[in-house]
């Protein structure tokens, strides 16, 4: 996936719109999830409570283009976005700065990048998601 400034700018606009819509505040975390890595999302959701305690967050706003994502935890607020929106958000993230309260739930993009290759080399998939990606 390659990025350009227009796409990143669109991502920032999308994020601003979502912030207003969700009444985003200092105790919120944003998770961006692009369809295709459901095993990663599932594992991260299992650790969501622990991550929130660590970051002293009260809510996770999950932005996704995957309508099959099923979230029943009341502290996770799922916001459906278009595929284009999610790609724009990722472009924004790659160009901009990472923040602790905004992250891409992925083993392809920054925090978890290359995470899968550790599986079987002393690490489980679970620990890759927990320590490598969520940094708990």
């Amino acid at each position, binding site marked *: 996936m*390659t*990025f350009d*400034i227009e796409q*990143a*700018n669109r991502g*920032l606009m999308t994020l601003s719109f979502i912030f207003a819509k969700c009444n*985003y505040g*200092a105790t919120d975390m944003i998770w961006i999830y692009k369809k295709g890595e459901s095993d990663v999302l599932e594992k991260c959701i299992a650790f969501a409570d622990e991550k929130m305690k660590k970051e*002293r967050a009260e809510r996770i706003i999950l932005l996704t283009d995957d309508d099959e994502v099923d979230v029943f935890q009341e502290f996770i607020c799922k916001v459906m976005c278009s595929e284009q929106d999610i790609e724009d958000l990722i472009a*924004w993230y*790659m*160009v*901009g*700065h*990472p*923040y*602790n*309260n*905004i992250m891409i739930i992925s083993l392809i993009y*920054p*925090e978890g*990048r*290359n995470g899968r*290759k*550790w599986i079987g*080399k*002393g*690490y489980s998939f679970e*620990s*890759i998601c927990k*320590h*490598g990606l969520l*940094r*708990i």
Partner: protein
Amino acid sequence: MLVNEKDKETINSLIHNRRKFFLDKKTIIFGCTPYARDIYQALDEHDIGLSLIIDNNPKKAGSGKLCMGIPTKNPNDLNDDEIRNGIYIICSKYHLEMTSQLIELGVNENNILCIHVGESKKLFEDDIEKMESAWEEVCLGRNLVDKWKREYGRDFFFFLLPYPGTGDAYMACRYLPYFLEQNKIENIMLVATSNNSLKVVKLFGYDTLLVSHEEMSIVLRSWEVFEDLRAFVKPLLHWGWRTKRFISSDNHPQITFNEMFLYDTYAFDRPHEGYLPKQAKTGSWVGCFASHGLKQGKTVIFAPYAGSFTYNISAQDMENVVIFLKNKGYDVCTNCFGKEKPIRGTVPICFPYEEAIGYVEYAGVFVGVRSGLCDIISSARAKKIIIYESGFNATSIDYFGLVNMGLCEDAIEIVYDNFDKFVSDIENEV
């Protein structure tokens, strides 16, 4: 958490501007974090003493633990004097909670100084302007790589060493030939911001390019976005550049420093035996030892300094070890250069990396805190006692241990906890 140059400047300038604030007060840092080291250095540069470091984590503070040689406490154990006369420095994203905790304990709000750097800043502050400036940096980075390619050749591949640690440069070079072979790369340049890194690179015979921190930063920016081999750029770091991987931290030590290079940095699918650097056989150590009156085979080279880590072993403890070694009949010298001072009672010596093994083998014994120098001398045929620490910002033996990493089998490795144990360990081994 990575403290960058900008963070250091912010810490330094704030301490400088507020230096009068500390007069006649006890200076206390709240938080045993990597920022504490830079705050400590900034205070020291302004001749401001540091009395105490406090932290809520019992693994880091309290029960006689030291942090950079400074006593530590849990905030709840602060005494009246510390509460009344302490100036508290906080540099953390949890500064609001930490400030509230201090106020609840009775500290005057005016005696709390919050330094806002990197991740301790407000969490969300991007806007279009910042996005444009970030993209500008990405483009500048790309242009700089193009400039290098025009200068050195279109087929040149640039390997970046963003981190100044010599151990990182050593490990990167140790396995680089396999990566070059695997990817059929012939013409390369190793790019670094520190002369020390480049000295290590030269041991392996690679061409080097010294760049500024700004240049390194924009090239990394560009790599973050266009990361792939077609960019002809690859950072050689044992953690993800944007966020330090917790995977390698003290809490998850299943993996070692060299394995991070093998499987993460280079993404090899199997282990490789690392290449060894070239060593010069000049024999210069003979003259050096003779001029300092040091005995061949009965000298201890003490290496108490490490670039990236701060050790809690006090100067007094080091001096006591020197006295012990001398009583056992050893001559003792300190490997130091620049502003570093020799341990009292020892001769200062300094040798280039390419002669390090020669010096250590001629001396007979090397005692040093874990640093990049230990990687370089790991293959020396001499007694090698390597000192590690546990706790805050420490060189974990699990992750950095020479034996664990397979660099050598004969290193004697000691984890420093307290002086008595340290001396008895040395006593047993020398």
